[in-house]
């Protein structure tokens, strides 16, 4: 059976555009290089109809962070947070499987180029991995003034996410940071822990003022993960498999 590794994700929840520090797409790319995927959820105000231009950044950050992005209204936040997290897991694992395929087949074939029957078999492996791998999610919440009416919904969505992910076989670790912090770029709200159910008591207070330093926040978030990168930890397990075989 396939051994488990640890997937690392940053889940950025915001409702606007960064306006301070380096380009968040660049720091997201940096995080991705370290084996950390960056997902972004942009919350729309209930009266916002079209996709506002300012939120193009949401998609750009996820693209360079190897993750998934989605714009949503408050009402569907819970389900979206989960879809995005799970879809990003599948995407990362599929990417990893594609890399292996490339080594085995020695060509540029990905899973999608295979016949449906073969694809089905490989998808089972991806699903197994998604169910059993360990997952670390750092939630990074924009607490600039405009997020005011959205935070209670964010809190519910995160508790819900923890229920979903803890129904998996693999282990989870979550932590929550908010930005901007009082003195630093980000501020710890909730330390690494397997569940988010006690989050109610510690939920972040809003920082007044209009700065949104998304770029620096992602960079700081990166350092809150343990050292091992995803690729390394999966490779190590591969070697163990061979030794055991």
């Amino acid at each position, binding site marked *: 059976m396939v051994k488990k590794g640890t997937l690392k994700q940053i889940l950025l929840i915001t409702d606007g555009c960064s306006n301070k520090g380096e380009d968040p797409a660049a720091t997201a790319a940096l995080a991705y290089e370290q084996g950390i995927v960056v997902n972004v959820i942009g919350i729309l105000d209930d009266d916002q109809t079209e996709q506002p231009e300012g939120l193009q950044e949401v*998609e750009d950050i*996820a*693209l360079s962070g190897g*993750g*998934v*992005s*989605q714009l949503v209204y408050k009402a569907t936040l*819970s*389900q979206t947070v989960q*879809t*995005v997290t799970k*879809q990003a897991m*599948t*995407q990362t694992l*599929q*990417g990893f499987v594609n890399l292996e395929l490339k080594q085995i087949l020695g060509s540029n074939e*990905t*899973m*999608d180029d295979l*016949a*449906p*029957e073969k*694809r*089905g078999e490989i*998808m*089972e492996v*991806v*699903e197994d991995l998604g*169910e059993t791998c360990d997952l670390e999610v750092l939630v990074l919440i924009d607490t600039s003034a405009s997020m005011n009416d959205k935070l209670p919904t964010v809190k*519910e969505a995160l*508790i*819900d996410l923890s*229920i*979903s*992910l*803890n*129904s*998996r*076989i693999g282990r989870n670790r979550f932590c929550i940071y908010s930005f901007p912090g009082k003195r630093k770029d980000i501020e710890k709200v909730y330390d690494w822990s397997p569940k988010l159910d006690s989050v109610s008591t510690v939920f972040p207070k809003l920082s007044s003022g209009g700065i949104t330093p998304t770029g620096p926040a992602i960079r700081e978030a990166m350092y809150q993960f343990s050292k091992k990168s995803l690729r390394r930890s999966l490779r190590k397990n591969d070697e163990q498999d061979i030794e055991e075989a």
Partner: protein
Amino acid sequence: MMNKISRKHDFLIKPGMKITGKWHNHTYVIKKKLGSGAIGTVYLCETKGSYAALKISDKSASMTTEVNVLKSLGKVQGNRLGPSLLDVDDWINPIGQKYTFYVMEYIKGEAVRPFIQQNGNEWIGVFMLQLLDDLEKLHKSGWVFGDLKLENLLITASPTRIRWIDVGGTTLIGRAIKEYTEFYDRGYWGLGSRRAEPSYDLFAFVMVILSIYYPHKFHRENPSQTTTTTTIFKKIDAIKTLTPYSICLKKAITGKYETSAQMKQAIQTVLYQAEKNHQEITNQKPFLMESVGILFVAGGYYFISLLL
């Protein structure tokens, strides 16, 4: 690879269009759109003179997962557990984009609520027993349905039978439920985990029954266990048709049944009891006849449907 959850499912597929698979070369003529959901769009199509349902999407991974489930269910003996799978293939559209599609048995049926409205409440008992039968078979083969909801159920004719479509949420027992809908999800109501267990489906099963009578659904006020249980119990109590079953339904809400067979047994007992009462009171209390009669008929219909 997709980086964004896309919302467009219509790849300009129009009735009359022919779709030919890249790998197996079968051709399907599109007749009309049947519906679309989170993953893809389903069309009625014609192939070699008969109808089938064709689901198409740009989400190759999710589609492959669904196909794997359908294949696995297809191996279950005497299967009525979901539509049978006919073909899986890729389609390249005229401008070179690739989509995945699969073709399955077309389940021609009517939605549950209008059926009950036209044919009477006595059918509730029948459908409950049929559904619990199917759930029991599904669970025995190692799966949990997951996304059990009214929209995923159809009533087919001759014999009248309730059937489910859309196996997108169907999950191996012990794993995390793949897909669910808040109203039907015990996690949302604070009444359990999202781990795939038979009791997960039984909770959703009760919510399916309730949603027949509450077309606009209802919400949790706050996610604490006691308040949500009270809310759901009140909704059960308010529907007269469900009174005979209310104890069973409440037990399933609080996770007291471990298997569908247990719940089915309990509902059968209700129906049997009703039949007995019916015989005893026929002469004395004709005014009770109506409600009891309904249960009696339900039992009859169900046993007939088993023979067919």
